């Protein structure tokens, strides 16, 4: 009854939002702003989220004054496809809502998801707008460096497959807190674990919301505010009414759509290349436009170096990734952080047993490897068939490469095929965003409702109805907070938040989970030590890292531009209109930013790396070991046999369906 009336209300709400989206007249968005803001690179759990760190700051400041080219999706077709996706997902929600009555239903879909289905859902969590749009863009502008990012997410499955998924499924129930509090002081550990989960998920969620808002702004030509609220309302609706079941199915549907679009695009690229990968790459190396792009835009060689093969350089590393130590640090964050992300951990509990958990990771690994491999073809295809010059003129970070390529390969702008394919890919990006944010809301609210409310406040004694009600209220609150924070962070540099989420998960959650499962003496003090020191050091290092915005650096860069151009003027050259505008802008930037300091009062970064894991993980691990040894706990040691037998054999496994 309640569910039904709420569903109706929710349907109404989302339709209103969609209707608002359909009326561009009321929304005066300056188009140049919309196209020059970085979008997808800021968004995801996926590969391209990190590299964008450097990129994302610049486009906002250094937006070229020349009239930008725009992606122009056909509104009628695009909106029809968006509505179709909303309609299908709402049907899923209504269907899932009927079956969501217990806490296990809400958090773990009653354990009724098969390994194969869960594999698609996990793969969906990895395939965000960042990887779909951002990574192909990065490849189209910087060549092989973009492709190197794909390896991290793929490799993260190995740690999950071998040492995380099955033990966690055997020993846990719904949340990170369930695994950690097994043989430690439950209230303390659950409290700390919940705070950590909410922090990680919110960081991530805000980055996603801001990215989503900006992407929708470009795709549908609607105001940022409307797109954030629209995405937020749908996301809250999925979670509140459908719980884990709806969230999982939305993720599966999205993953299916995304793979369809990706395969189609990659096949079209290969057909155009005559199905010959070797000649495809030869064409890339031989492309005059790519050679010019590498020489002038990337390496900044005004005069070609004699005998240097600029085309071949596109296939060699180091155009985008310059600091090897940062790469290793990012590698650690991926290899271990993904395994500690709460919204990924939660997915292991939706399957009935460890065997299905194993199967789901293998399925996810296969889907994602295929996806990332195809993205590499799409990225290089975009470079060859669109040219990096065109791609970066539409969006500095290259985020529109996939969309432009779809339009071109579908038959070109204005043609029915081009419009249809572009609209389809836009709709897929939309579905991607919805699915990823929903999973994050669910993870954050599970930590609050299950760990804090049910287990700390109620001492584990709450009936099913009260548990589900609390979970729904918390989801609603988390969703509303995320919408407000997304609105507030429109102009903020949110890229650091993604780096942070991974670093915290790798430095705090991962050692805590591993040692809980595998080290006999590990205890409450160690868990708290790992979570607190891991989290604090990761946040602290990111705050003083190059991820933050440093006004002084912007001022210095502007000063360089001013000096070069003024020198030109002094030499008697009459500046072109474009240069005059650049000079004016640089003067403004210099005035505004000179003497300014970053959020924590720094003129320049203290810590040289964007990814803190290489330092914060050892700190978290060290704290875990040190605190454990300092505060010995006999009870935790005595209970080790139990958790070990459980995680290895699956005896006494929490049946998500019985209570």
């Amino acid at each position, binding site marked *: 009854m309640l569910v039904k009336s709420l569903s109706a209300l929710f349907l109404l709400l989302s339709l209103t939002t969609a209707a608002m989206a359909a009326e561009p007249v009321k929304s005066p968005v300056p188009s140049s702003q919309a196209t020059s803001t970085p979008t997808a690179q800021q968004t995801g759990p996926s590969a391209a989220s990190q590299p964008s760190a450097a990129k994302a700051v610049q486009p906002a400041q250094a937006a070229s004054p020349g009239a930008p080219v725009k992606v122009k999706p056909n509104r009628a077709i695009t909106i029809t496809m968006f509505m179709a996706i909303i309609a299908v997902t709402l049907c899923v929600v209504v269907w899932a809502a009927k079956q969501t009555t217990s806490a296990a239903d809400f958090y773990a879909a009653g354990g009724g998801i098969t390994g194969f289905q869960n594999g698609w859902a996990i793969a969906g969590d990895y395939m965000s707008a960042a990887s779909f749009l951002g990574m192909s863009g990065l490849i189209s502008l910087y060549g092989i460096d973009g492709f190197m990012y794909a390896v991290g997410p793929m490799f993260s499955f190995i740690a999950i497959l071998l040492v995380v998924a099955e033990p966690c499924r055997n020993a846990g129930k719904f949340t990170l807190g369930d695994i950690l509090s097994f043989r430690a002081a439950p209230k303390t550990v659950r409290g700390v674990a919940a705070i950590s989960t909410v922090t990680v998920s919110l960081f991530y969620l805000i980055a996603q919301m801001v990215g989503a808002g900006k992407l929708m702004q470009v795709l549908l030509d609607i105001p940022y505010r409307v797109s954030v609220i629209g995405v937020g309302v749908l996301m809250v609706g999925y979670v509140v009414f459908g719980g884990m079941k709806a969230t999982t199915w939305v993720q599966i549907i999205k993953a299916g759509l995304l793979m369809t679009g990706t395969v189609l695009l990659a096949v079209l690229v290969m057909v155009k290349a005559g199905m010959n990968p070797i000649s495809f790459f030869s064409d890339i190396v031989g492309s005059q436009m790519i050679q010019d792009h590498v020489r002038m835009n990337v390496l900044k060689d005004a005069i070609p170096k004699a005998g240097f093969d600029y085309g071949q350089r596109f296939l*060699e590393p180091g155009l985008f990734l310059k600091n090897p130590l940062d790469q290793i640090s990012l590698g650690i964050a991926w290899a271990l952080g993904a395994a500690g992300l709460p919204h990924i951990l939660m997915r292991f509990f939706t399957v009935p047993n460890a065997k299905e958990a194993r199967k789901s990771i293998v399925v996810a690994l296969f889907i994602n490897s295929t996806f990332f491999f195809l993205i590499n073809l799409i990225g290089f295809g975009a470079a060859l068939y669109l040219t990096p010059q065109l791609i970066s003129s539409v969006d500095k970070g290259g985020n529109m490469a996939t969309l432009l390529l779809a339009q071109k390969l579908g038959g070109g702008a204005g043609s029915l095929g081009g419009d249809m394919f572009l609209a389809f890919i836009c709709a897929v990006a939309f579905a991607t965003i919805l699915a990823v944010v929903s999973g994050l809301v669910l993870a954050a609210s599970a930590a609050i409702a299950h760990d804090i409310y049910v287990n700390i406040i109620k001492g584990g004694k709450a009936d099913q109805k009260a548990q589900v009600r609390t979970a729904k209220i918390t989801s609603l609150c988390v969703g509303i907070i995320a919408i407000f924070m997304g609105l507030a962070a429109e102009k903020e540099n949110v890229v650091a938040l993604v780096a942070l989420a991974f670093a915290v998960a790798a430095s705090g959650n991962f050692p805590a989970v591993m040692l809980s499962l595998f080290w006999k003496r590990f205890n409450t003090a160690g868990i708290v030590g790992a979570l607190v020191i891991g989290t604090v050091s990761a946040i602290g290092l990111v705050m003083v890292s190059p991820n933050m915005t440093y006004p002084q650096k912007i001022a210095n860069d502007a000063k360089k531009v001013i000096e070069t151009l003024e020198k030109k003027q002094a030499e008697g050259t009459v500046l072109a209109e474009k240069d005059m505008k650049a000079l004016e802008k640089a003067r403004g930037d210099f005035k505004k930013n000179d003497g300014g300091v970053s959020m924590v009062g720094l003129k320049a970064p203290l810590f040289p790396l964007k990814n803190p894991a290489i330092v914060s993980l050892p700190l978290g691990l060290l704290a875990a070991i040190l605190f454990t040894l300092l505060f010995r706990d006999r009870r935790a040691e005595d209970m080790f046999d139990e958790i070990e037998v459980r995680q290895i054999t699956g005896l006494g496994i929490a049946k998500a369906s019985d209570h």
Partner: protein
Amino acid sequence: MATTYDWGNIARNPKYLELKRKKRVFLFGWWAASSAFYFMLPVLSGYFPELFKMKIIGVVNFGYLFILSQFVAAFFVAFIYTRVANNQFDRLTDELVREIQ
């Protein structure tokens, strides 16, 4: 949880100890090996760029093929683990559980 088990007793069961040892050696061994291979990517590309630039097939260089080899390696580990887990670990676990219940 309906049944309670004597965890300490199970933990001393020889079958359990065998399963535990086999799992530990296999899982941590493969994890370490695959991590070593994975971290070769940032290390080699960062500190030995010349190696990555070596052309192997036409214009396609060592770097590109090495990235592809990471995909193959991940498939390989997943394949080996699935086989061993399905054939060995699951069987041992089933035997052990049957003995206890």
